[in-house]
């Protein structure tokens, strides 16, 4: 059967759909442009986890978000607006605040919640955007290491802070 349709100015648009370029492996030259079939069960398909981790992560985002709104807006108000704003911030000002267990607790809570909230958000983004499992694994490992480092370092500083150094 003759193909009588014309390609408009030979406008060849590459596939806008996500594909890995690996194709289906059937030897057909068009395979590279075919989206690999999703949801096929392979040995690599993760098993059912039977845990509530995803639900707890989702709940944590909602609850920590509400608390962070108060903590961060309060923090910004104290640091940038009240009592002369940024001009007052110095070593003495921080030392004075951290003399009180209340502000130590405030900053500690803000550090932990903000870091875990941000890390969980990034985990979601990586899960959504990484195409290969290995990329996904390494990005999450890197992010986890950075999170643990920041949280531990911050906690150490808050608890061992010496105003006399």
């Amino acid at each position, binding site marked *: *059967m003759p*193909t*009588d*349709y*014309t*390609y*408009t100015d030979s*406008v*060849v*648009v*590459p*596939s*806008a*759909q*996500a594909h890995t370029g690996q194709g289906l492996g059937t030897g*057909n*030259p*068009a*395979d*590279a*442009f*075919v*989206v*690999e*079939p*999703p*949801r*096929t069960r392979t040995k690599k*398909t*993760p098993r*059912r*986890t*039977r845990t*509530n*981790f*995803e*639900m707890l*992560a*989702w*709940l944590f985002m909602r609850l920590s978000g509400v608390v962070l709104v108060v903590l961060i807006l309060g923090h910004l108000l104290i640091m940038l607006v009240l009592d002369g704003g940024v001009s007052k911030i110095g070593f003495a000002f921080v030392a004075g605040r951290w003399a009180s267990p209340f502000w130590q607790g405030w900053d500690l809570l803000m550090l932990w919640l903000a870091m875990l909230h941000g890390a969980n958000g990034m985990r979601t983004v990586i*899960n*959504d*955007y990484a*195409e290969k499992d290995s990329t996904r694994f390494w990005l999450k490992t890197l992010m986890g290491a950075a999170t643990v480092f920041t949280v531990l370092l911050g906690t150490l500083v808050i608890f061992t802070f010496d105003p006399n150094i």
Partner: protein
Amino acid sequence: MSTPTVEQHSAALDAAEAGGVQLITVTLRIRRFNPEEHPEPVWVDYQLTLDPKERVLDALNKVKWEQDGTLTYRRSCAHGICGSDAMRINGRNRLACKTLIKDVNPEKPITIEAIKGLTVLKDLIVDMDPFFQAYKDVMPFLITNGNDPTRERLQSAEDRERFDDTTKCILCAACTSSCPVFWNDGQYFGPAAIVNAHRFIFDSRDEGAEQRLEILNDREGVWRCRTTFNCSEACPRGIEVTKAIQEVKRALVTRRF
């Protein structure tokens, strides 16, 4: 008596054909893909003269029947019930049989392509197997315990109303293939599967809610939903898809705590 009636009728038809209908020229820009002929998808323009009150499906039929018989697409009932002809028209997922030409800006070329996130087999036809696999995974059938009753399983009007919205699904895949999370790797269950789980989870006659909730509590379940509302916008049946997903999330949270 009968003869004049027929004449009147045909006279009315003639009038409609002569002056009542304003035909316009429309360009359909269809993303065609035939792996046996050309390894890459190509956009092909087709010029048509038709009534703007006709549907996109009529335009596709006109192309297939009068210009190019190789154009391939699914359609069955052509009245928005079978869910065969979901496609991306001017960048939005719609049913070709429910979309009028006049509503998709016929002054410019109307772009038509296959729904995204599923393997394109040819032209506008995609492999729906992964979509139906996700649907089957949520067990879309009545699950009960004990002996079968000797009569119907009765239900109050309020209990029926609880899941009325999600009974409207026709499994056209417009929602699932509009979901950016599904586009990524296709492992997410997708809005359509969750809608059909919702239909049974909130059915007072069903006793399998806990099993379905357990399936949707997994890493590829409801918690991957980002509430982008693409699904609610795409649904040709007007189902509040995102709301249904949120209700499943809420059921999970309240049952687990």
